[in-house]
C-alpha cells in the first residue's frame, strides 16, 4: 500500500485515495473544432510510461480534493505531489 502525500493533509495511506489516471490531459477547448483523431486521442490515448509518471489522485476519504503526483512506475516511489494548476516539478 502506498503512503501518499496529500498536499493539504500530509502523508496518508493509499486506501483513503482514488486514482485519477494521467495528469495534465487537456480537454480541447472547442470539441467541435477538432477532428475525430484529436478527440479520440484526448479521450483514450495515454502515455503509460515505464518510469516517471505525472498522475491525478483524489483524497476521497479525507479532504476530498484533487491533486497531482509524480511517481516512478517501476519502483512505485512517489517523487513529488503538488496542487492542481501547478506545473509538475522538473
Amino acid at each position, binding site marked *: *500500500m502506498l503512503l501518499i502525500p496529500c498536499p493539504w493533509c500530509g502523508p496518508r495511506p493509499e*486506501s483513503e485515495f482514488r486514482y485519477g489516471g494521467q495528469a495534465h490531459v487537456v480537454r480541447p477547448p472547442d470539441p467541435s473544432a477538432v477532428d475525430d483523431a484529436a478527440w479520440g486521442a484526448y479521450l*483514450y490515448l*495515454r502515455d503509460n510510461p*515505464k518510469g516517471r509518471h505525472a*498522475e491525478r489522485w483524489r483524497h476521497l476519504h479525507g479532504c476530498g480534493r484533487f491533486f497531482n503526483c509524480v511517481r516512478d*512506475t517501476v519502483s512505485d516511489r512517489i517523487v513529488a505531489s503538488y496542487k492542481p494548476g501547478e506545473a509538475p516539478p522538473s
Partner: protein
Amino acid sequence: MGEAARFSFLSLLRHGLGKAWDRQWRDAQPKAAYDVVIVGAGGHGLATAYYLAKEHGIRDVAVLDKGWLGGGNTGRNTTIIRSNYLQPESAALYEHALKLWEGLAQELNYNVMYSPRGVLMLAHTRHDVQVFKRHVHANRLHGIDNEWLTSAQAKAFCPPLDVSQGVRYPVLGAALQRRGGVARHDAVAWGYARAASAMGVDIIQNCAVTGIARDAVGAVTGVETTRGPIAARRVGVATAGHTSVVMAMAGVRMPLESFPLQALVSEPVKPVMPCVVMSNTVHAYISQSDKGELVIGAGTDAYTSYSQAGGLHISRETLEAVCELFPSFRRLRMLRNWGGIVDTTPDRSPIVGLTPVPGLFVNCGWGTGGFKATPGSGHVFAATIARGEPHSIAAPFSLDRFVTGRLIDEAAAAAVAH
C-alpha cells in the same frame, strides 16, 4: 522414431532412470534478417509464429523476448478458459479460441492439459442476476453454451461453495459455461514453441528490443535489439503490459494503461474444487491445479505500474472473499503470490491488427484475461500479418476504433474490476 513415442511410458521410465531429456526447441541465435519478427515470446507471440509457419507457410520468423519464453503473463495467469462474453464481436473471438483449445493438444502433439471442468460465475445481487441472465441469453443466441443455475444447483455443481443466504453477499444463482475450464499455462508456451521451432521458427530469448527501425516513408525496416539489429519488413508486437513502451519506439501512442494483477496459490491439498468459480462482486476467482494447489486470482492495483508485484491489501481482500464463499478453505495457508503487468484498454477489449506504421502490427490490450484467447489470438494475428489486412474475426478489434468510436464494451464480462 515418431513424435508420439517421445513422451511414451517407456521414455518416461528411461529418463526417470537418469537419461537426460533432449531440448524441445532450438536455442536459436539471431540472424541478420527475417521475413517476420514477433516481439514477445509469450503464448500469444509463440502461437502467432506457429500459425504463420503452419497456415501461411511463412517460416522465416523470429520470436524475440527480453527474458525467457513464457516468463511474463503466460506464466503468471490463473489459466482460466471461457468464451461467455457479451458482444457478438467478442463472442466470435473468444469462441474461436475455445474451439482451438478443444483440439490444441492433438494439434501440437503436446499435452496442454485443457480441462473443460466448467466455469461458474456467481451472482450476489439482483443486478448481477440480471446481467448474468442477459449474458446467458446473448451467448446462447450466438451458439455458445452458457446456462443459468439456481443457488441450489450451483451448490450441487460445486459442493464446497457456501450458498447460505445469511451472509453479506449471498449466492443468488450462477451462470455456468460447461466447456470453460483451465489448461496448463507453461505447456501452452512450450507446446507452441516446440511446434514452431520444428517448422524453422527461431525463438530468441534474452534479446530485448530497444528500437524500431523505419525507412524514409516511415515503414518498418527492422528492430534494434540488445543482440544487434535484425531486419524485417513486418514486425508484430505481442508484449502485453509493455506494449505502450515498445510502440513508443515507433512513435505510436496507445489507448492502454498497464496495471499489476496478482495471483496466489495455496499449499497443495487433495481434490476439493471440481470447477472454476468466479465472483465479480466480492472479487475472487479460484480453481484447483492438478498439483492440488488452489489457484486464486486477485484484482488489479488502483494505479498503473510496471512493478510485477501488487499491494498486499488487494490479495487480502480477495482472500477474505474466498473465505466467505468457501468456509472450509479458511485454514489453508498461502504458498506464493506474484504479479503480472496487464494492459487494459478503455473498452476492456483487445486490439489486434494494423497500426499507423506500415509493416508494424500489434496484438495487445487483453487486459486481465488474455490467456483464454491464446490460440485464437495467435491464429487471427498470424493471418493479419500474413495478408497485411485484418482477419475477419480480428477486424472489429482494430486500433482505429478509438478514433471512429466503434468500441466493444466488455467491462461486465472482463470479470476483473479494473
